[in-house]
């Protein structure tokens, strides 16, 4: 079976005035379905840049990117939006929920953009909230929820469209370690249920929950480690 993700010689160069910033210098990476990967590396090494490219929020300067064997690097804005909507779920460090909308409405957003009818939407979104253990908080607004709960809403939103891939860039960065562990348990469960997950983190103990750790250094993959099943 083909890899879920196939990155070939991905280069990302930012032009800042006259200076070229090489965020990624030729990354090759293959990810299979149902993998659980941690990406580690020092600040500024290119982790977020890589995540944005994998998540189709950004396009590489050069290189090939195939998602489920479809060449993504050739796609235009609208096609990328569609891919993000159907195949990718994002979890951000800062949650990025709409502050004035209820948890339920926040979770419904991806469904709105994929054209699911209002009644179906509600059912699906409630299911997703249930999966992260928040069915009793669906009418709360983000500021009425704790940090951990907000991140769970974000996770529910990320998985509501049944994506091929869930991307989380430092999802525990704004949480205390206890809450962070809770969130990581949610990811663990999702992975057990068959979801493919990529998590960027600085914390060793979080990275260790994954089945594979990719270490990035200065825009290159320095180390790609398959962990023993524990």
């Amino acid at each position, binding site marked *: 079976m083909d890899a879920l993700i196939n990155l070939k010689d991905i280069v990302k160069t930012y032009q800042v005035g006259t200076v070229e910033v090489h965020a990624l210098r030729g990354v090759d990476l293959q990810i299979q379905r149902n993998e659980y990967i941690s990406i580690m590396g020092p600040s500024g090494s290119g982790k977020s840049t890589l995540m*944005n490219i994998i*998540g189709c*929020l*950004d396009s590489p300067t050069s290189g090939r990117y195939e998602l489920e064997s479809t060449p993504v690097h050739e796609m235009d*804005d*609208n096609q990328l*939006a*569609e891919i*993000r*909507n*159907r195949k990718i779920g*994002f979890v*951000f460090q800062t949650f*990025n*929920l*709409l502050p*004035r*909308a209820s948890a339920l409405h926040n979770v419904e*957003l*991806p469904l*709105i*953009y*994929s*054209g699911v*009818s209002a009644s179906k939407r509600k059912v699906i979104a409630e299911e997703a909230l249930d999966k992260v253990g928040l069915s009793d908080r669906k009418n709360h607004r983000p500021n009425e929820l704790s940090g951990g709960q907000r991140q769970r809403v974000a996770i529910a*939103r990320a998985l509501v*469209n049944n994506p091929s891939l869930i991307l989380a860039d430092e999802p525990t960065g704004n949480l205390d370690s206890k809450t962070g562990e809770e969130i990581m348990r949610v990811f663990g469960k999702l992975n057990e249920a068959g979801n493919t997950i990529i998590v960027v983190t600085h914390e060793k103990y979080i990275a260790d929950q994954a089945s594979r750790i990719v270490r990035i250094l200065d825009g290159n993959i320095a180390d790609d480690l398959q962990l023993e099943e524990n």
Partner: protein
Amino acid sequence: MISFFIRLWENILIAVRALAQNKMRTILTTLGIIIGVLTVVSVASIIEGLNKGFASQIASIGSNTIYVQKYPWVAGRDWFKYRNRPNITMKDAKYIQERMKNAEAIAPATSTRRSIKYRNNSLTAIGVSGVTMETEKIEGYNIDEGRYFAPLEIAKNKNSVVIGYEIKDKLFKNRYPIGEKIRIGTISYTVIGVMEKRGSILGHNLDSGVYVPVGSIFRNFGFHRSIQIMVRVKDPSMIEPAMDELRFLMRVSRKLKPHEEDNFSINQQEVLTDMYKKLTGGLYTAAIGIGMLSLLVGGIGIMNIMLVSVAERRREIGVRKALGAKRVTITFQFIIESVIICTIGGIIAILISYLFSVLIDKVTPFPSSVPLWSVLMGLGFSTFVGLFFGIYPARQAAKLNPIECLHYE
């Protein structure tokens, strides 16, 4: 198609949500639109009212009547010229009466103001109109009590008087007036009739005057006065030839040489309606000008607020894009928002102008109503302004880079 409407509906919900979060700003933003639509709709309703009232009153002057007078009804800059004209005289009237072919009825008319007195009751500054047998036809007089003049009374300039409907009440109270003697100025007149109620034209009360044979005015109150000659024609098509004939006869009567200008005016209701149309036309133009200007200002205000709103909500835009909103979707969302703001403004303006109109109708003598076309136009314009001025900010929003938006604090 159905999915388009569902999407439209979704976007309306999103927009309403966003606007409800910023109620005060939304209302302030709509002010320009409100003023613009208000101006157009209010002026339209005022003019609509004027049209119904004023214009019909002008029409009641009688479209079949021509007036030969010293002054034109609509005088230009050289009004002083007219002051040197000779008065219209009974001689002119007589000349026309004897020769005019295109007329149904011809009557000289003159008036004065006197105090009138019955026993201890007196009224001051009462209009005294000089009439003839034909005046009754031309003005369509109807008698309530007693009778109109007999031909002989007119011919002999008898001191008989027909009193207006209100004069009877004021002067005689409950007493039967016919046959009583009243004083007009210092002259004694016998009351022979009471006019039916006539109402008013252009705020001028038609029931508060008295009518006497025209010759008696000259005899009793002085010969040196100008008259007017009223000429009634059978139907409006006769107006033109009658006016030509009148002009010709007047020139002959006045012995004017071909190169000399007319030293009289021939007036007809149409000049008033023309003037009225020009006036209201001017009002419309001004209102539409002001309305357009405020809509423009309002539209720029909307654009500005929408740009601010886009800048403030970069994170939201970033999130929506990351979750799969396409450019068109974001564009649509923000355009709908600005259309809704403007339409709300338009609706508020229409409600206010409706209140205005009710107020004008109640408080002033003018009737007023909001015409449907102005409501539709107001709504149409406000929606259009929302659409037009919403496009630029919405496209700015759609162009934003999601990664930068998500990092925006």
